[in-house]
């Protein structure tokens, strides 16, 4: 894909989502969990952007922030509508509802996202009615088709959520997201509860649908082998920030950030002959309420230098053999400068 063909669908700039920490009877605010802390990124139409990172680093919160499902503290999320870019944060209620048809989210927790009192048909027909499908027979057919597309029998629509296994519910969540013809789907750990064979089916399905409907995905996961298979580009998050962002091939072939390197070394391999020796990350996971100074990864970084302790690195873009590669790391920066790699402006102006 050449650079000039890329059409930006979503522009996130300086996004911050903080949760207040309250204490005492008066519920005084004593601090903030900086779940998303100054994130800027572009999402291109038709791509799959993988979002990976440690548990609690803010992946779900970033997804919810885009959809305005949590109060966003700062920044903008501009989405390209037919009549141009509009900031989702500033959209009036009614327009936001419409935008939510275009942007769907498949929640991490399939249990809490299906209403136990409704049959699957009941849960899935709601969005269809809302978006204008008045005829019940038509809805029955549509929902049946959707279930089949995620490899579930049609007649499961008459059942209740508690009659399904974990993986079955996850697929129902995917079917529901697909029902109203979205443009952008945010999949939050959408295949993590699926066994490998069904995972393979769903991944293939997602790829197929992407081609067919020109869908765009933001794919949140902790499973790097899944994003590698699925994603065009991968963003690595650490403690509310993006530390590395590049194409999927480049990330695996030329891993630059020490955190990404550590992540890659920890993956279990499906091979008994090769029981790997993992290099666990040193030190404790820092708290997003009280992030370390300088580079937030420095206390755990094997390559930490004096400078990293005080000075926060910026996410900067380097172009390596024509491929754009964003990294925020002092050491990498030095290395790149020594090599004379082309440096571009950082995204957050």
């Amino acid at each position: 894909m050449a650079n000039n063909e890329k059409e930006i669908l979503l522009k996130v700039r300086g996004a911050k989502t903080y949760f207040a920490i309250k204490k005492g009877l008066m519920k005084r605010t004593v601090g903030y969990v900086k779940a998303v802390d100054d994130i800027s990124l572009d999402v291109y139409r038709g791509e799959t952007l993988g979002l990976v990172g440690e548990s609690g680093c803010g992946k779900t919160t970033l997804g919810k922030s885009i959809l305005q499902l949590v109060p966003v503290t700062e920044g903008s999320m501009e989405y390209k509508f037919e009549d141009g870019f509009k900031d989702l944060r500033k959209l009036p209620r009614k327009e936001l509802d419409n935008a939510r048809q275009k942007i769907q989210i498949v929640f991490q927790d399939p249990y809490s996202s299906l209403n136990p009192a409704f049959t699957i048909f009941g849960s899935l027909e709601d969005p269809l009615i809302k978006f204008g499908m008045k005829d019940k027979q038509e809805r029955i057919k549509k929902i049946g088709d959707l279930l089949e597309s995620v490899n579930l029998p049609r007649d499961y629509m008459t059942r209740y959520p508690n009659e399904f296994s974990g993986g079955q519910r996850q697929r129902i969540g995917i079917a529901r997201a697909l029902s109203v013809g979205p443009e952008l789907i945010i999949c939050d750990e959408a295949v993590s509860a699926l066994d490998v064979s069904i995972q393979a089916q769903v991944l293939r399905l997602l790829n197929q649908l992407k081609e067919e409907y020109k869908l765009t995905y933001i794919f949140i996961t902790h499973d790097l082998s899944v994003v590698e298979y699925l994603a065009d580009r991968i963003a690595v998050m650490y403690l509310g920030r993006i530390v590395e962002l590049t194409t999927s091939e480049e990330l695996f072939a030329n891993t630059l950030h020490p955190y990404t390197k550590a992540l890659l070394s920890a993956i279990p391999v499906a091979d008994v002959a090769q029981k790997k020796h993992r290099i666990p990350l040193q030190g404790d996971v820092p708290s997003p309420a009280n992030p370390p100074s300088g580079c937030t990864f420095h206390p755990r970084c094997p390559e930490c230098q004096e400078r990293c302790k005080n000075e926060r690195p910026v996410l900067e873009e380097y172009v390596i053999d024509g491929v754009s590669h964003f990294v925020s790391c002092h050491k990498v920066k030095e290395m790149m400068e020594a090599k004379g790699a082309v440096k571009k402006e950082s995204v957050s102006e």
Partner: protein
Amino acid sequence: MSESQNNVVLSVKDLHVYFYTNQRCNKVLRGVSFDVKRGRTLCIVGESGCGKSVTANSILRLLPELSRIEEGSITYYKEDGTEIRLDQLEKNGKEMRAIRGQDIAIIFQDPMTALNPVFTVGYQIEEMLRQHKPGLSKEQYKKEAIEDLADMGIPAPDIRYGEYPHQFSGGMRQRSMIAMGMSCDPKILLADEPTTALDVTISAQIFDLMNDLKREHDTAIMMITHNMGVVAEMADEVAVMYMGNIVEYGPVEDIFTNPAHPYTKALLRSIPVLGKGKNQQLEPIRGSTPDPFNRPKGCQFCPRCDYACPRCEEEMPGEEWVKEGHYTRCFNYREVMADGK
């Protein structure tokens, strides 16, 4: 054989569990047998919906109203030599409740079934400790609960202790539940997809803790997972389930290098391999999972199997022993094994 027999803490024999919903009967488990041994890890793998969670829940008698253990036995062998038939205990009787958490702990697939949204996470861990380690002071319980959270790699555990489940990220909820399950040093730990929401570094840390438990307390672990990487790393034995039966059981090395069931083989082929990127052809298993209400007559995998013969359509294969400690339910296993990977 006899020596290993002594190490068995839990023995499930010919377990049949049926669900009665919508005036129909779903035969979810159709004769499942396996042993769980002291200080060993058994991993159960298999397609979504094949009955893995139901197996774990049956052991602790946590099945929903509309289901019944129809046949078979579940025996728990206590350290002092007494045998307890879990399947015959009263579901919510005193004995069963004492066993839950204390002797046998479970980590549920869905954190929200285990965590109560109206209590703080810290309080819920303390409750667990209070039940199973009585007699400590208030401060001691709090200290231990905070330590448990810290062990799970949850940052700022002293603050998190006072927070509610909804303030936690998905993975943190899962970890608090694991902390509850492991806090009482159980004899048997049933872990149902314990780390699906966790990234590799943290799951590695949790697996290390499980291995400590196994080493220090001789805890038997039964872990349900769909991640073959985790299986390769953690399992001593593996049971592969398909549509309510264990179709292959054996030592982890044999399962990976010498699979004897066509389903196991197909499963191994459908894993995305890191480093191969987008070019790899994932081979999902052809066809789809049969409708549980309209099952094939013979071998359940037959309609999707490359090795099927007329006999497979008629008859469910029994347990064929490939060698000691390794069995498969397949008539044509010799051919399957000879066929390479």
